[in-house]
């Protein structure tokens, strides 16, 4: 119960928080087609988040629903990886982050379709289709930017350099993931690393880009996003996300 709830919050918070950063792109995209695409990806992730937070509530067995989790938890209760929460950068950073995030998440979700938890398996099956599109979108832009102008090459290279130090965290299993992984319910993310490296390698080659080399950014005393230890940008994100809901705790919307 508790482990499954925690695991659903991990995957749900990844989607919720990265969706927030994509929402910040709204009205700021370089072209209308991208406006539509980025909103679409944000919507897909928001949908995944809602299903996962609802599943967490059921697993927990109390009466907490999706909105309770999204709007009334404190920062240290959010279990998303730090990659999801990094402040919005330029379009190069967006594409780099989306490429890393969707490649990782797709590799997880593919495996998760075989979860012994039928709800998780169904959520994953739906998510696989969405994430395949997200990854394609990011990969296509990574190639255009890498093999476009000198300046675009610089921007995507810097984008990759800025997100790369947060990549290791994606594949570092939390005890909950290991326990549920052994039970056939969750996916141990370290199992997805090879596929991730392979796909990234293909995309970066097509984009004529090198794989970034940068040391992983540590958490605090070994604790990072999955353990509720976030970056300084997270508090501002939550302040905005939760502002209206918390100003009217008794309201229904």
């Amino acid at each position, binding site marked *: 119960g508790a482990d499954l709830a925690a695991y659903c919050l991990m995957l749900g918070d990844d989607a*919720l928080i990265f969706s*927030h950063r994509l*929402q*910040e792109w*709204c*009205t*700021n*995209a*370089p*072209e*209308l*087609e*991208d*406006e*539509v695409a980025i*909103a*679409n990806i*944000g*919507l897909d992730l*928001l*949908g995944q*988040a*809602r299903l996962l*937070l609802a599943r967490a509530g059921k697993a927990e067995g109390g009466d907490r629903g*999706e*909105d309770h989790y*999204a*709007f009334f938890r404190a920062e240290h209760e959010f279990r998303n990886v730090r990659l999801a929460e990094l402040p919005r950068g*330029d*379009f190069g950073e967006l594409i780099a982050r989306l490429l890393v995030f969707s490649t990782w998440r797709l590799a997880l979700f593919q495996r998760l379709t075989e979860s012994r938890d039928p709800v998780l398996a169904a959520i994953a099956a739906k998510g696989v289709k969405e994430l395949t599109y997200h990854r394609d979108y990011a990969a296509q832009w990574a*190639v*255009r*930017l890498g*093999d*476009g*102008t000198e*300046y*675009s090459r610089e*921007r995507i290279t810097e984008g990759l350099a800025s997100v790369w130090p947060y990549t290791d965290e994606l594949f570092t299993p939390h005890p909950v993931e290991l326990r549920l992984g052994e039970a056939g319910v969750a996916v141990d993310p370290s199992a997805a690393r090879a596929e991730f490296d392979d796909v990234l390698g293909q995309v970066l080659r097509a984009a004529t880009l090198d794989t970034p080399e940068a040391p992983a950014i540590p958490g605090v005393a070994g604790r990072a996003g999955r353990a509720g230890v976030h970056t300084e940008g997270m508090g501002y994100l939550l302040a*905005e*996300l939760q*502002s*209206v*809901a918390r100003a*009217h705790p*008794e*309201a*229904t*919307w």
Partner: protein
Amino acid sequence: MSLELKFEETIAHDQRIEPRDWVPDAYRSTMVRMIAQHAHSEIIGMQPEGNWITRAPSLRRKAILLAKVQDEAGHGLYLYSAAETLGADRGELTEKLIAGKQKYSSIFNYPTLTFADVGVIGWLVDGAAICNQVPLCRSSYGPYARAMIRICKEESFHQRQGYELLMTMMRGTPEQREMVQEAVNRWWWPSLMMFGPPDADSSHTAQSMAWKVKRHTNDELRQRFVDMTVPQAEALGVTLPDPELKWNAARGHHDFGEIDWAEFKQVVSGNGPCNAQRVAHRKAAHDDGAWVREAAAAHARKIDERQRSAA
């Protein structure tokens, strides 16, 4: 039959003009102006509502709002495409918007100040837009008419969602009800202004109606909107901020107070509460995206060259 005669006849028979048909220059420029203005309105209109996406107080409302704003980007896309069938260029139209040489609907020059504004925009602003746009589904220009059919369908959906949000809020806390009333107070008069100046002062109406690109006068549409909205306001439990608003049995319509046309002119002429902000925001996004568009073009050229040298 001369080209001009054929054009007149197509119009007279309520048939549609299609992209390859000959049209008078004045028709072409009128249509481009209308369609571009409408496209710009969709794009600028994303800003006031987009302002509340990250702060939407429930995940369901957040998804609805994000999907709605995305739809508006989609509408912008269809409409710019329709304008392109008349020989316009999307990039050039955007430049004109940013330079203040083409307009967009003045309603978007008002700020969104609470989450209730999201509902009120859906109810009143989309409602007024639909009144304006339903007749455009029979516009003489085919691509525009077809775009409008799709857009109107989606906007009706948005309007219902907006009204439903307000209904939910009116069943909520006293603060929520107050928030809805206050938003209605701010948006009511600007919504009435969306139908444009009174018929007597409208410079485009006559020609547009003759060409069947427009089918009702501003005042006719405004009256239809008021008559439609009054019972909805009653059902909702809000007061429309017009002491002169009342049913006139003789006319079979609601009478309503005088619109502040000085305010209307000020906002249309570029000096509303948010005109500068909206255009500056659009310009910043466009400028920030320049290198991305250039990269895409450069990459496409490279691919093209590689394919040609391989052939």
